[in-house]
């Protein structure tokens, strides 16, 4: 009797999660793939047009502009976040005074929503009322049109993204550092290895698994960014901070071209998948760190 119950039980336990998961993740993913091959304005029924949306996408100069802009944003955010969070983790993993306090401070922004963060920076960076321009003024410098100039707006959006996320990855790196046995450093110390050599030959290679997770996650997060940009720059000035996700949203819910928007989503998914594979490959090169 209890054998039978034990057989059926796992299915019952997993069922509620699986149903919701199936309806709201698996099905939409497949359905979205289908929609990308159709022309659809939601009101009528979808009409199959084969690769039409993808051809339109590849021929659209706007798409390539937005894609390259997105890549610049992502490939700025990821390395800066990676480097900074690793440095902070190494500093705050050592036995220094008030390290808990510093950790909490760097972690603080990761608690806030991107909406709250976007509004905050918008207030600080305002041209005529922002505190930052006032500080520049005090220092005798000319005010900067932070968010109304394409170049500085891009830089500030990148900055705000890093500001918002660095503490999270710092905590991850600290956890990774705590997994490295202290004896390695003691041995290196005895052999007369410098701090830099210790970092290069012990810390960095042994942090590889954590580094991989940090790179993969920060890349996905950067590609996903929506709320921060929505309130900080609304994608502007012009469309200079409009990235792929903003464009998908606009095409789907403002233009109403679901097929075209879905084709872009499929592209985003392919890019994310390819990047993740590349990141795993690069990380695996050079073998296991413990060997």
């Amino acid at each position, binding site marked *: 009797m209890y054998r039978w*119950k034990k057989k059926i039980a796992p299915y019952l*336990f997993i069922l509620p999660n699986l149903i919701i998961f199936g309806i709201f993740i698996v099905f939409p993913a497949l359905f979205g793939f289908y929609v990308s091959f159709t022309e659809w304005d939601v009101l009528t029924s979808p009409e199959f047009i084969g690769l039409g949306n993808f051809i339109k996408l590849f021929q659209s100069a706007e798409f390539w502009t937005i894609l390259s802009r997105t890549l610049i944003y992502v490939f700025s955010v990821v390395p800066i976040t990676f480097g900074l969070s690793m440095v902070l983790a190494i500093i705050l993993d050592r036995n220094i*005074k008030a390290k808990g306090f510093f950790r909490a401070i760097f972690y603080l922004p990761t608690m806030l929503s991107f909406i*709250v963060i976007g*509004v905050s920076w918008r207030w600080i960076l305002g041209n005529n009322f922002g505190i930052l321009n006032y500080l520049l003024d005090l220092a005798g410098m000319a005010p900067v049109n932070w968010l109304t100039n394409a170049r500085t707006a891009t830089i500030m959006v990148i900055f705000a993204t890093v500001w918002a996320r660095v503490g999270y990855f710092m*905590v991850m790196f*600290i956890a990774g550092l705590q997994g490295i046995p202290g004896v390695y450093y003691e041995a290196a110390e005895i052999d007369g290895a410098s701090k830099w050599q210790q970092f290069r030959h012990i810390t960095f290679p042994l942090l590889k698994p*954590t580094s991989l997770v940090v790179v993969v996650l920060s890349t996905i997060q950067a590609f996903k960014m929506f709320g921060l940009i*929505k309130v900080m720059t609304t994608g502007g000035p012009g469309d200079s901070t409009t990235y792929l996700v903003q464009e998908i949203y606009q095409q789907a819910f403002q233009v109403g071209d*679901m097929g075209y928007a879905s084709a872009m989503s499929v592209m985003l998914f392919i890019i994310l998948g390819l990047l993740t594979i590349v990141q795993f490959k690069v990380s695996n090169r050079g073998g296991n760190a413990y060997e």
Partner: protein
Amino acid sequence: MNNKLKNILWYTVLLLFSLIFVLPIIWIFISSLKTSNEIFSWPPTILPNNVTFSNYITAFNKGNFVTYFKNSIFVAVAATALTLLINSMAGYALAKFDFKGNKLIFFLFIATLMIPLQVIMVPIFIVLRNLGLYNSLWGIIIPPAATPTGVFLVRQYMTTIPDEVLESARIDGASEWRIFSMIILPLSKPVLTALTIFSFMWRWNDFLWPFVVLSNESKYTIQVAIANFVGQFSVDWNSLLAMNIVAMIPVLLVFLFFQRYFVKGIAMSGMKM
């Protein structure tokens, strides 16, 4: 001596750097306490001349701020409760039963970590609409509850519970549900606490999902309301800053009281936000 100097230098650099992370938040708070004249005065005052809470009062009287706040609380609490229930059940099944499809389902969960909502927002929107969940708070509570991250966290933790505990309970004739609710859940308290905190924070801070699903202003969560407020032609900074601070308070409180669980939670999983 040299060492001491070096130390002081290090701390100064660290302290200055950390200011970049707290000052913006403090500045928003200070600004929110200024009168509508003072907030735009130039040169700006650093501390408010007269501390006033009028911005908060205006914000609360304006629009449906109390409603937004209530919606946010309702969504965060209901979604967290649902997440805890179904994730812990699924995590338990994956961790402690050797059934057909176990590996496949686990792989499926992990694989979908790579499919962010941003990629499937168009079809999800259509599914929600067809289920009558469009413009409903349940439409933003139910779908994210089956979070793969949560299932993963719980599963990883529960695999460390020894099988003997379950077997002896089974021999004593305890039902499967009883074993789960009376033995497994109490033993999994650390991971469930971490998941509660994370889930509350995720749902409280959610934006894109509610933004896509909610169309009626009376259904707005606080994040959607703030974003909408910014989008208006002339931004009413006084109310906006006050709203911004109010939107921070719940997560900051959670952070203050449960700090150590965050570190544990992230370390346990090495997972997404």
